[in-house]
C-alpha cells in the first residue's frame, strides 16, 4: 500500500496532541494507523477459498483507497492549521495555554 506519511510521522503528529480537545489531525492520523493495521491484518489471513481471496482483495483495495483519501485529508488539515510540513510540528497558536515546566 502506498503511503504519503510514514508510521513514525503519524505517531509524531499524534504525540503532539495528547488530548482530544486539540487533536483534529491526531484523530485523522489515528484512523490512518487503524487502516494500516487493518491492511496488515488481512494480508496475514488465510486464503482457503475463492471467496476468501475476493474478500481480502476487496479489503486491501478499499483500505488503500481510504488510506489515500484520509492522507490527503490529513495533508490538507495540516496546511490549514499551518503546521510545519517539514518537521510536522504543531504551531504554537494551536497549543492550549502551555506552561513551561
Amino acid at each position, binding site marked *: 500500500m502506498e503511503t504519503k506519511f510514514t508510521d513514525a510521522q*503519524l505517531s509524531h503528529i499524534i504525540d*503532539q496532541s495528547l*488530548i*482530544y480537545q486539540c*487533536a483534529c489531525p491526531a484523530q485523522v492520523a489515528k484512523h490512518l494507523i487503524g487502516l494500516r493495521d487493518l491492511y496488515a491484518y488481512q494480508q496475514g489471513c488465510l486464503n482457503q477459498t475463492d471467496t476468501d481471496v475476493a474478500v481480502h482483495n476487496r479489503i486491501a483495495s478499499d483500505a488503500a483507497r481510504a488510506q489515500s483519501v484520509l492522507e490527503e485529508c490529513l495533508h490538507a488539515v495540516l496546511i490549514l492549521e499551518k503546521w510545519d510540513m517539514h518537521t510536522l510540528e504543531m504551531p504554537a497558536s494551536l497549543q492550549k495555554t502551555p*506552561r513551561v515546566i
Partner: protein
Amino acid sequence: MSDSIGILIFDSSAYTRSLLVERIARINGSFLHAYQSISLVDAKQLPHQTSLVVLNHHTQDIQPFEFIAELKTSNPELHVMVIVSPGNEKRTMDPLRLAGKIDALFEKPIDPEALAQHVSEQVHHLSGKQRMANENLNLLRFLPTGSLRRIFEKPEPGRAELFDMTVMFTDIRDSSRLISESSAQTYFARLNTVLGEQARLIRLHDGMVVKTTGDGLLAIFEGAARCHLALKCAHAIQHCALIQKASVGLGISDGLVLTGILGTPEHLHFDVIGMHVHLASRLCAMAQAGEILATQETIDKAHFEFSSQPLTEKITVRGFDNPVSCSHIQPNY
C-alpha cells in the same frame, strides 16, 4: 487525605508535559515531580514516597523499555501508567504490559477526564493502602510476635493459656522527688522519654511490653533464648538509663505464666498473671537503682556473659513461703 502520594511525570515535550501537570495537579492527596527525560531519574532510586509514574512516550524519545522494566523490578508496589501512540508504538509496549511492568496503557489522543479519573482512583487506592499499612504497623507494635500471637487470633475475654516466658519489670526510682521538683508536664515528658526508650529496647530484643505500671513497664520474652534476651535487654536499659541520668531498677523471673485477654467485648486488654509475674515485680521493687535483680533460674538458663560477677543470695520475698535464690547484677559500662 494527606499529601503523601508522589507522582512522577515523564514527558519530553514541554507543552504536553504542562497539559499532564495541569490535569494531575488538580487531584487531591498527591504531589508531583515532572521530568523532561527518563534519563534524569534512577529507576532504582525514585524520589521519596513515589507511588505512581506517568510516562508519555513520544516516537522520537529514547526507548523506555529498560527503564520501565526496572521501575517495577525495583519498586513492585509502584503503579506505572504509559501513554503512547496507537499502532506500532503501542504494540511495542504490549509485552511490558503483559509482563506486568505497565499497569495501565493509554492510547493517544487521550480523554483527559478518563486519565484524571484513573490517576485519582489510583491516588485514592494507594493512599488507602498506605494508611492500612501504617495502621497495621502501629497495631503490630502492640502485638506479640511469637506463639503468643495465637491469643490474639480469638481475642475472647477470659481466654487464657500457659506459656513459658521471662517476665521483666522496670521501675524509675525516686520518682516522687522528681514529681515534686518539676511540673507535671515536664515530669510526664521525661517519663515518656525514659519509658519510650525502654519499650524500644524491649522490642529490639524480641520482647513485648504488656503494660506500663506508673513509673515502669511490665514486659515479657518468649522462645528458647528468652532468658538471655531479657538479661541483654535489661543491661541495655540500664546503660540507657545511665545516659538519660535516670535511676532504674529491674526485676526478672522466668517460668510458666498465664496469659490471656481480660475485660469485656467492649474493652479488652492483654495481661499476664502468675507466680513469676509477682516474683519479678517484687524483685524489681527490691532492686537498687542501677541494679538488675533476677532469679537464679533465669541466670542459669540465660548462658549470659556478665561484665561483673553477679552476687548470688537467697532472698526472702513477700508472698513466697521459701527464700528465693537470686542474683544481683550491677552492670559495668
